[in-house]
């Protein structure tokens, strides 16, 4: 575990108890009635889910930026999150919102299959494979976005439409241990796959040809990446909706604390992602709005200005 991972692990240790106690109603374990029940059945699963989803998004972001060798890459670029969202929207449409995670995971799985088919046909050795593959991911994302918009405009009822729109904004409100059991194993498996691919991502630092000369098989790497990002992002969307910008911002925050190789960035990014989503979810509970601010909206409100700042900084050549 490197220095950055230790820093964010320590931060997480501090944040978890704070997150458990924070909320519209602050809990004092000694005096609050039913404190143990609230903590165990409401606050703790929500905190664990925030850690799981943030960890998955952070790791997926670091892996995507390493793979595309671009600090502006985001896990959403592969089209897995939009396809998972489309699957979830389909569950509202057919009136099976109780099976939403299954539909969303099916959407993510379909995206992974499509990407694997494209990856299988991506020419190895001719160069430009990564660009071609990324464009394919963008097309899948674009198609999923269009179909989601179509599903919203043709929603069977106003209630279904409002449910869809609300869900798309991403939140951890009212989540239980059920969602944790769905997301945690898949996300952990995804992070493990990405960690396994991390040294290959390091080789890509030198370009595709040099990486292949170091014994890296681009197709194997691509399959590992699709599997890792698919599992982490797909399971996150399945239980919490779209939560943007974590995968983009977190690797940037962490990178200066590491030796900047993707393998050094992955675990610290997972821990920092967990910290960010946990802190943001605690903040939206505490902020004095009439209804709880959606987590996805809150992170985008912070993330979009950060993205702009990042672009301006890149123009000045400081990145």
């Amino acid at each position, binding site marked *: 575990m490197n220095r950055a991972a230790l820093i964010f692990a320590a931060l997480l240790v501090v944040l978890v108890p704070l997150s458990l106690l924070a909320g519209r109603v602050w809990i004092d374990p000694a005096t609050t009635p039913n404190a143990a029940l609230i903590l165990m059945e409401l606050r703790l699963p929500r905190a664990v889910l925030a850690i799981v989803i943030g960890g998955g998004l952070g790791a997926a972001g670091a892996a995507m930026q390493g793979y595309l*060798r671009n600090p502006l890459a985001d896990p959403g670029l592969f089209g897995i999150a939009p396809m998972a969202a489309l699957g979830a929207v389909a569950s509202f449409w057919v009136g099976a919102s109780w099976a939403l995670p299954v539909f969303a995971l099916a959407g993510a799985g379909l995206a992974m299959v499509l990407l694997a088919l494209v990856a299988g046909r991506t020419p190895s*050795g*001719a160069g430009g494979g990564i660009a071609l593959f990324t464009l394919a991911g963008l097309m899948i994302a674009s198609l999923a976005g269009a179909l989601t918009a179509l599903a919203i405009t043709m929603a069977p009822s106003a209630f279904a439409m409002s449910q869809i729109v609300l869900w798309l904004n991403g939140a951890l409100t009212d989540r239980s241990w059920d969602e944790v059991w769905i997301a945690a194993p898949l996300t952990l498996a995804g992070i493990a796959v990405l960690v396994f691919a991390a*040294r290959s991502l*390091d*080789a*890509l*630092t*030198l*370009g595709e*040809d*040099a990486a*292949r*000369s*170091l*014994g*890296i*098989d681009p197709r194997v790497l691509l399959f590992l990446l699709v599997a890792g990002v698919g599992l982490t992002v797909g399971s996150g969307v399945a239980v919490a909706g779209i939560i943007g910008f974590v995968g983009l911002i977190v690797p940037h925050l962490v*990178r200066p604390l590491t*030796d*900047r*190789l*993707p393998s050094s960035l992955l675990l610290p990014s997972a821990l920092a992602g967990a910290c960010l989503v946990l802190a943001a979810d605690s903040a939206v509970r505490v902020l004095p709005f009439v209804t709880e601010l959606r987590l996805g909206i809150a992170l985008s409100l912070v993330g979009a200005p950060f993205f702009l700042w990042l672009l301006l900084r890149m123009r000045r050549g400081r990145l």
Partner: protein
Amino acid sequence: MMLACDNLAIRRGQAEVVRGISAELRPGTITAIVGPNGAGKSSLLMGLAGLLPAESGAVRLDGTPLTELASRERACRIGYLPQSTEIAWDVAVENLVALGRMPHRDRGSEPVEAAIRVMELEELRTRPASQLSGGETSRALLARVLAGEPQWILADEPLAALDLAHQITLIDHLKSCARSGMGVVIVLHDLAMAMNHADRVQVLEEGALAADGTAQEALTPETIARVWGADVEWIGMPGRQAIVASSRD
């Protein structure tokens, strides 16, 4: 540890970029691949490194076709330095050089230190890649190849971004690699460099060998006129020759 190709043909897209090349390259020597733009030099080098599939023919390392070697074993034995000096992240020199150990699946501090020493990068070891000059970057990237302790170094225009002093330094390093028993194959544009420093020169024209032999045999004014369409002559002593345009009178 002979590196040989047998009637090698390579296709990139619709174009056949390497056509029927056969050669046996010996370790302990420097082979220069030269030719006009688009002659197929880089494709041949990538083919020899096992990075482009052969449409026909084969590349053999010590008699074994490269396609039968696991990619990791091939990577341990053949170090390839691409023309691109791309370094995606602002990695420190020592971490960059250590990437050369990847096929060996170790951090190999000794070979990494040796490569840093040979390429005179000791004082730059913690410097981020973005703060290196073109020459320093080229040295760091070659050190990355050396850290892998390959039997063969295949380098695509390693002198391209370098000023004269650094070109001489780098070619001296490659010569010492060859003296230590490695095989060195380099793509060059500078015919004088090939003439003065290569043990063997292969001249490529439209993907096929136009000449192959010692520098004196391969780089005759007649061959240069035929392949490059340039009327030139060599001046100076063997080993210290320069190329000049032929006088018209």
